[in-house]
């Protein structure tokens, strides 16, 4: 057995002893029972399996588990904090940015990485950034509105709350 793979998963230290060539997607979905990341194409072509690694959106179906050693992994299960939905999650609910919901975790996490890198993207920038994430139901319009809305909510100065 190769050396253990250690990483932070949704804020928690995680150690795995497994074949490092396995994909992050299937380790998440089987060993770790985090099924929010979905299989859609197995080739990095649809974005349903998107998770965030060290702040970047990655396709977990073409990412080896060994490659996240020492890194910070965020999945959809780790986005809400203390039972509070993340502003992006809330915006997807409010704008109807989902129908069947299968692509939704990947959409939200891809947008999450986008807004971390670029807090106030233009509509063109959002469309360009989301281009590789497929949605078959045709919720695109609402997804864009949700991302714009969440960007606004997240960019508001902190400390406004009592």
């Amino acid at each position, binding site marked *: 057995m190769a050396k253990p793979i250690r990483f932070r998963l949704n804020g928690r230290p995680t150690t795995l002893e497994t074949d490092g060539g396995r994909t992050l997607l299937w380790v998440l979905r089987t060993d770790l029972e985090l099924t929010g990341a979905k*299989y859609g194409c197995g080739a990095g072509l649809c974005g349903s399996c998107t998770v965030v690694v060290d702040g970047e959106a990655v396709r977990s179906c073409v990412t080896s588990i060994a490659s996240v050693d020492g890194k910070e992994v965020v999945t959809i299960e780790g986005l809400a904090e203390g039972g509070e939905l993340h502003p992006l999650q809330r915006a997807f609910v409010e704008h109807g940015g989902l129908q069947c919901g299968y692509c939704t*975790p990947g959409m939200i996490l891809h947008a999450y990485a986008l807004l971390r890198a670029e807090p106030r993207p233009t509509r063109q920038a959002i469309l360009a950034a989301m281009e590789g994430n497929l949605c078959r139901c045709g919720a695109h*319009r609402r997804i864009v509105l949700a991302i714009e809305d969440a960007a606004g909510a997240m960019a508001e100065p902190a400390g406004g709350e009592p």
Partner: protein
Amino acid sequence: MSPTTRGIDRRAFLKMVGGGIVVLVTARPAALLSQDRRRPIYPDDLNAYLRIGEDGRVTIFSGKIEMGQGVMTSQAQMAAEELGVALDAIEMVLGDTDRCPWDMGTFGSLTTRMFGPALRAAAAEARAVLVRLAAKELGVAKERLVVADGVVSVAGEPDRRVTFGELARGKAISRLVDEEAVLRSVADFQVMGRSPERMDSPAKVTGAAEYAADVRLPGMLYASVLRPPSHGATLGAVDPSPAAAVPGATVVRLDDLVAVLHADPETAERALRAVRAEWREPAPPFDDETVFDHLLGSAPEPEVKDDRGDRRAAREAASRVFETAYRKGYVAHAPMEPHAALARVEDGKATVWASTQTPFPTRDRIAEALGFRPEKVRVVTPYLGGGFGGKSAGRQAIEAARLAQAAGRPVQVAWSRAEEFFYDTFDPACLVKLASAVDSDGRITLWDYEVYFAGDRGADLYYDVPNARVRVFGSWRGAGSEAHLFGVGPWRAPGANMNAFAIESQVDSMAAAAGLDPLDFRLRNLSDPRMRRVLETVAETFGWQAAAAPGGRSGRGTGRGRGVACAIDAGTYVALMAEVAVDAERGAVRVERIACAQDMGIVVSPEGATLQMEGCLTMGLGYVLSEELRFRGGKILDKNFGTYDLARFSWLPEIRTVLVENHELAPQGGGEPAIVPLGAVVANAVFDATGARLHRLPMTPERVREAIGAVAG
């Protein structure tokens, strides 16, 4: 067929749900038969029920499934409205064959139209029962009682009250409703006609929503199934020993079904690749280009749907007869969730969690495959990651059940994207041949319509034409002939997309030849008030300015154009207008904006209906501009999204939708109509921009360039 063989046993159900008030509704055959008139076997049994528990919570049991179309919420809205409770007092149990009434399947924009009335009747009856119980409890005449938020109180004396939960306590009342109850009218609606937050949203944004492939059982194994290289291939020698040598792998062979099972899905897949199999493949008889000749050659005798006037005289009188053929290739469903199922078979009973639009028919097919009686099989339907008609066959559920039975452990079958493309039941390739004529006043005088393998949905003529014939050669099912080499089936508004593409393109060509504005031309030939109204409404929403097409010019540079098209589907009237920009050199069509006006009768959830319209208009751009399955004989050449293009974010047009008020009509279908005229509206706008008429879907850059070249040349 007796009710209990198809549906749940009524007494067993009542025993299972325990106390409270349960209302059962029998099917009203007249309405429900039209779910599918070719298979008029809808049982004369329950088709809806709901239960009011001692805690006042209402549970609705429905055989329908949630695949993104929002029926979990809209069904709850309908029940909440008739019952007099808040939406959050309702819990939905969907698509579980042990707990829900028999249902043919979720398709055809039928849930609200056909199932809705039964559900509303059940809720209205429950309310009547509760009011009678309350009258006794409170010692007043029931006419003096009012119901709100799950509380019955005396009008004007809010302190004299009793809750639904209190009324249900200690009771075991069951009611059977066999006729339409008196339903609340639009003016009284409290819950219907509004747009609450979808009940499934919170679970779907947190990853908590469970899909079939997410279900986990102790000891479960993941299957990788040996697949043929092409449809029609036959299996010769198989040597699975290299796969069986992989640690932890089990090889199962059941006649035609060869699979490797493993606790890790990736290991199962790798091990399967080691299986040596010989296949014999037949020579490919046709491909995606030559399929149309094949279809014309294999067409069955037509069904004559319409035959009126004197077509010969109309032909002779016409200064010009427009004769055109329209074509469309095979289109994949490509839901983001590939088919998946998990099966557990133990103690003579099978439980299968499956992504399926048809839990009950799938249960029956699993039972047949296992040699079980249907009541020994339970199909549970978690959330579906998209269906669009493509999750009706249940093949993966049968495979999982057979493998679980053989292995003695739970088995998951989750298709890869390549398997999804291979076993899809595609929207079939099809053709329309059409001859028509118009007189000097801009009135259509002749219509001779032949549709091959798209079927009759949307083939009926809604324009006022005195001399017309409509003939349907084969349905979209392809049944009764050797038309297709692989599976075909319903695809969001089956066949209607093709019929509307042909009808509305043809009408546009005649308008142009008559030198008339395409909207004006349509209105001249339409007396149906619902169609006139959606056209007039969409024109206002879009900002239509009357002019004959083509307005743009073919040739170099970017031409802009706009088009109009309309359709009737699932009882709903819809009209679209679109503006496109066409890059003549590249042949690229960009749809810049679309307006949509829809009359769907009473609207249960305006937001839900709007999302469905937007979804249709976005998803539909794929079949209009890029989606066409490539194949050679039974070999499917598209295996993933690298070569098969769905609509993407950069394609997104500006979309404006409007619901045309029609409170006189019960709720009609909403999941499909807006996708129907999309091919025509884009083709008509491309014609306006370039003067080039596209007769084939999808309108790929190559075909657009070619059509523009033909005009310019």
